[in-house]
């Protein structure tokens, strides 16, 4: 039995990536969870289903400090729980918390984890997805940031456990912190969040700015829409959709690359997808080197035809 602490960044509902952390932690042993504010009732119920024993919460609302309040709370929970492993998500924000927490706990930090075994040996993708390593911490505690879509949730049966107990920690932290003084929400989308989508349809310069055919395919497949930096720089789509070294990292079951050449910086964000399909009119495009299926053709013809055929098969 290894006590694991899962650091969540929501006190409301769980997302798929949160459930992955909980299932991974549950498989290791007893689970503690940190949430950044007063937990919603529905969240406590859901955590009970993951056999979570204790939920650690801040005694007071954390305020507008950047990163540091989350680090301080996670530190208090880690010490209190005696966890051997602290699990966080794979977002840039979560990685920041992971790094600072590692310094405070004297713990080795491993990011981009795609698997973690019972001996706490982590599998991690490196060098833009071109290599896979197995690594471990030499410290008493391991801090691990898990890449979304790494844990299979299909076998999870909700536990019939009671509600977790709630432990509040007073975490006034003396460390200097930046403060958030303004927030602007990006327009919400009906499609699944990019980082945890099971299917991603991504477009590049080759779309010529028309993402319509990609959106249709994404909707038929229940997927999210992503983009290369060239498409983002052209102003065709928001930066939050960018996939790659300086955008999001995705690891979906299916990645459909449309009108993207497949530069190393793009690959860095998608190469761990289980299946890669590429549509590009240039047969020399480097994306074909990593594609399971490559269609040499014009995406404006290929995508609508694929959508039509999928709809026909469905009806």
């Amino acid at each position, binding site marked *: 039995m290894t006590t694991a602490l899962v650091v969540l960044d929501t006190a409301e509902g769980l997302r798929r990536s949160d459930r992955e952390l909980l299932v991974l932690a549950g498989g290791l042993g007893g689970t503690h969870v940190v949430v950044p504010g007063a937990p919603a009732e529905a969240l406590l119920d859901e955590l009970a289903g993951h056999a979570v024993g204790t939920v650690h919460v801040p005694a007071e609302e954390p305020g507008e400090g950047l990163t540091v309040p989350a680090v301080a709370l996670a530190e208090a929970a880690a010490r209190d729980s005696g966890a051997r492993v602290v699990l966080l998500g794979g977002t*840039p924000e979560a990685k920041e918390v992971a*790094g600072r927490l590692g310094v405070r706990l004297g713990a080795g930090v491993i990011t981009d984890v795609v698997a973690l075994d019972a001996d706490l040996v982590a599998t991690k993708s*490196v060098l833009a997805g*071109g290599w896979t390593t197995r690594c471990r911490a030499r410290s008493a505690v391991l801090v691990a940031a898990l890449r979304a879509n790494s844990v299979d949730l299909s076998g999870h049966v909700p536990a019939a456990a009671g509600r977790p107990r709630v432990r509040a920690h007073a975490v006034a932290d003396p*460390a200097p912190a930046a403060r958030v003084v303004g927030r602007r929400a990006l327009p919400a989308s009906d499609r699944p969040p990019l980082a945890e989508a099971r299917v991603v349809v991504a477009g590049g310069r080759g779309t010529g700015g028309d993402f319509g055919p990609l959106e249709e395919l994404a909707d038929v497949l229940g997927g999210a829409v992503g983009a290369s930096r060239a498409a983002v720089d052209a102003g065709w789509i928001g930066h939050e959709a960018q996939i790659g070294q300086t955008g999001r990292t995705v690891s979906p079951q*299916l990645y459909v690359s449309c009108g993207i050449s497949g530069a190393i910086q793009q690959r860095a964000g998608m190469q761990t997808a289980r299946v890669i399909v590429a549509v590009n009119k240039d047969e020399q495009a480097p994306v074909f080197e990593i594609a399971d299926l490559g*269609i*040499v053709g014009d995406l404006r013809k290929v995508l609508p035809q694929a959508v039509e055929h999928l709809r026909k098969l469905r009806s």
Partner: protein
Amino acid sequence: MTQPLTVVVLVKHVPDAKEERVLAGDPPVVDRSSGILSELDEYAVEAALQLTEARDNAEDRVLALTMGPAGAAGALKRALQLGAHGGFHVLDDALAGSDAWVTARVLAAAVERIARHAGAPVDLVLTGMASTDGETSLVPGQLAERLGLAQVGLASSLALDDDAASLTATRDTETEVLEVVAELPAVVSVTDRINTPRYPNFKAIMAAKKKPVQTWSAADLGLDAEAVGFAGSLTEVLEAVPRPPRSAGRIVVDEGEGGIRLAEFLVAEKLV
């Protein structure tokens, strides 16, 4: 006139991502025998230059800091050509195999040492958003933690207020755009959206040759060999394997039925 500003920019020497990159040895490490200034650190250098140029105080200093093998002098040289005033190189065979924990520890000691060397406190430490070989994005936060400084991660814009007592930055998350302020001194990592890095011109390349570069060993920073490199790291790599090529990959030329082939493939792979 306001106080002169001392900005330290972290620059890492990394293998060129356009070439074949390999992990080799026992324990496996990235081969850094040849390399370049990490592309993403050019944005940090440019940000430092733009901040100081906007202030127009001849006393301001942009100082580049690297930790790495002998070849890392190349990353410093590039930073000096771009306009940094001086360079600092932490160079020691004992540093090989350092993880983020050790790297942040060494760089924190170096930043403190730079302050003593320059006889002025360091006001701002700028870094890239990730190194293009390590790709952990851990070092900036760990450095802030060790130095006890405020931190802004992933700034896509950055400005100093008039007396350089505080900074304002933009930070993009998946769902929000945040406006963030921090008192100086601070550590800020910048993204590739913050600016367009300049190219050095001939004059700058010549001028860089005369700029001072200071080299320190781990011992010079008060760190013994056991605290750095493989010995001091809190993580270890047990094994590294290249991703198997997608040998089963199939290429279909669209002759009018490409979309149907695509759909059939998705069905066969149980992806719909």
